[in-house]
């Protein structure tokens, strides 16, 4: 398997570890951090900003899609855009002061965290991390409270504010169904420059590290997403500081860490609340007897 990957990479293939594409259906509890979980490596030094991925994404998700020719219009790059209810992925372009004429293009979408904040906070558990790497949202459970949007460290989920009935949380689902049927994510499949590499996350980390090692002058020595907030399924390579490309500054700890420990501390097997209840009961009984004995 590892050999195959290396060869695939050497060919510059866009799929790494194709053998694991059709994962067998498993029984038992989900192993969401299985070594076979998939990811995508985005090489921003390769991306030319053609925005075909935006078009393919909309087509694949049945969103209103303008004709493909309109995507050649580069005026959209004047303003930074964010994923929204009608665009689950967008490409932004940032000029490079050191190399005018060679801007960096950065595709943005859900990062599919290994320890997703949205999964942790969702009041009804409408989010789930799947073994294939996808972080999914379940329309049947969601109440539309938007806590996921408050919690997401990448500020990705979007909400259909204009809908009075069944407004949805919209975000990239890492083409969960397409991949389940053996296909590639729509954006990866369509990318003409092979800026997107799909494969096992483990392998992608190796591929990324290898690229940086082979061309240290081309890349900064940082694979964004390898460690950020505990690791993400989508990872990035860049030729310049990630923060110049408007990536958020994040630590290595998973986003849910602190709040989940507080939460589990307060509720450790319901001992603290029950103990408080008992304590108050005793206090009430003592002060009642005290009062009645003392006053009359």
């Amino acid at each position, binding site marked *: 398997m590892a050999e195959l990957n290396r060869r695939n990479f050497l060919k510059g293939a866009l799929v790494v570890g194709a053998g694991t594409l059709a994962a067998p259906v498993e029984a038992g509890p989900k192993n969401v951090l299985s070594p076979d979980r998939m990811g995508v490596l985005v090489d921003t030094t390769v991306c030319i900003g053609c925005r075909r991925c935006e078009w393919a994404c909309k087509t694949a998700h049945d969103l209103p899609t303008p004709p493909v020719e309109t995507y050649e219009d580069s005026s959209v790059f004047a303003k*930074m855009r*964010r994923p*929204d209810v009608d665009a689950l992925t967008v490409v932004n372009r940032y000029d490079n002061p050191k190399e005018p004429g060679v801007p960096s293009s950065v595709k943005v979408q859900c990062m599919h965290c290994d320890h997703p*904040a949205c999964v*942790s*906070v*969702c*009041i*009804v*558990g*409408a989010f789930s991390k799947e073994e294939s790497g996808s972080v999914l949202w379940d329309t049947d*459970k*969601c*109440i*539309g*409270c*938007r*806590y996921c*949007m*408050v*919690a997401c*460290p990448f*500020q990705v*989920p*979007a*909400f*259909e*504010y*204009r*809908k*009075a009935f*069944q*407004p949805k949380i919209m975000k990239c689902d890492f083409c969960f169904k397409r991949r389940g049927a053996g296909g590639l994510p729509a954006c990866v499949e369509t990318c003409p420059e092979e800026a997107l590499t799909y494969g096992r996350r483990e392998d992608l980390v190796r591929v990324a590290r290898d690229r940086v090692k082979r061309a240290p002058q081309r890349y900064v020595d940082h694979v964004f997403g390898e460690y950020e907030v505990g690791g993400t399924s989508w990872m990035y390579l860049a030729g310049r500081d990630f923060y110049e490309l*408007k990536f*958020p*500054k*994040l630590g290595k700890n998973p*986003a*849910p860490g*602190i*709040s*989940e420990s*507080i*939460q*589990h501390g*307060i*509720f450790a097997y319901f001992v603290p*609340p029950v103990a*408080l*209840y008992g304590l*108050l*009961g005793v*206090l*009430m009984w003592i*002060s*009642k007897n*005290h*009062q009645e004995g003392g006053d009359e």
Partner: protein
Amino acid sequence: MSMDHYMRPQQIRRPFLTPGVVVLILLAVNGLAFLAARLFFGIGAVANLSNQYPWGIWIGIDVAGGVALAAGGFTTAALGHVMHREEYHAVVRPALLTAMLGYTFVAIGVMIDIGRWYYIWHPLVFWNGSSALFEVGICVTIYLNVLYIEFLPVVTERFIGRVDLPGVLARLNGVLDTLLRALDRGLSQTMFIFIIAGVVLSTLHQSSLGTLMVIAGPKMHPLWQTPILPLLFLLSAIAVGFPMVIFESILASRSLGLKLEMNILSKLGAMTAPLLGIYLAFKIGDMFVRETFVYLTVLNAASVMFMVEVLLGVVIPLRMFLSREVLRSPPLLFTAASLTVFGVLINRVNNFVVAYTPPYSFGAYRPSLGEISVTVGFVCLLVLLYRACVMIFPVISLPDKALSPRSRYTVRG
């Protein structure tokens, strides 16, 4: 303890409508109009919320502020019932009514803010134990029911021996009276279970409301982002309980033309001082441990709001509650209580709205006219319902010389 008169909760008999009440009704109707627009055309049609700022004043004021300011319900229940301090019973019922109405509007506030209000029941079926919001939701739901149960004896007291149905239904009067008496007996034997549960549930969700924003991590301004947020939320809720009781007692007395119970209110004010002091100690201590005071050296919305919150909302009222002169003077006591209420309300708005600085922002969040109208409308509705309730039910205690202290329906829960 002054024993020259006995206090007994009574219905307030006054005309409901006054010029002030008409203004409240107009503001409430205005809020309901915007609420209707939200229901028919979606949140986006009324609110300035966006993908960058998903939560606004409906969460910051209506929900977080509402829960905090309804804390008088559990702090007075702890004082009057758990600590069994009879002399405070006169304020327990008004505080209970405020909490009951307050939490009712918190629930309504949540309902209109969530995109799918008709799925409000989902958390009861789909659980997520790692979510602080789930815990808040469940605790608030149970507590709301506990508050209604705690209020039931007021309802039975009002109608026992006075059931008078019109027409054919009059035949049921006897049966209904018997049922009410049975309910009353059952309640008085089991009420301690609900009272303690109310206190426990309150400490749980008051603190968990603070946990909510911890996961927002770097999206939250460091002046407010701290792992002890749940503790700060709990301490501030405990500290604002009595000031809220003082605030509404003085307002209600003024509005309903009643004599002020300064005796009780001064003592509540005196007890507030140490509670506010503990809160302030943790707030300032946290600031020094995390060395966030550096953010106060720059002048911006965050530093100004923080200073307003701490100086105007905590330090000044704390100093005031420590003064005997303030405790004896209704206008000064009212000022100190109002400042505390203001301070905690601003704290909740700061935590949920001002402190929230998303990495990608296209212009700051400003509440829309619709959001403000709905929030103001809910506050007005709450005040109107409070007024109606104290006129329908025996909530507010008045001196009653004709009554012996051990009468069957003297002050109770």
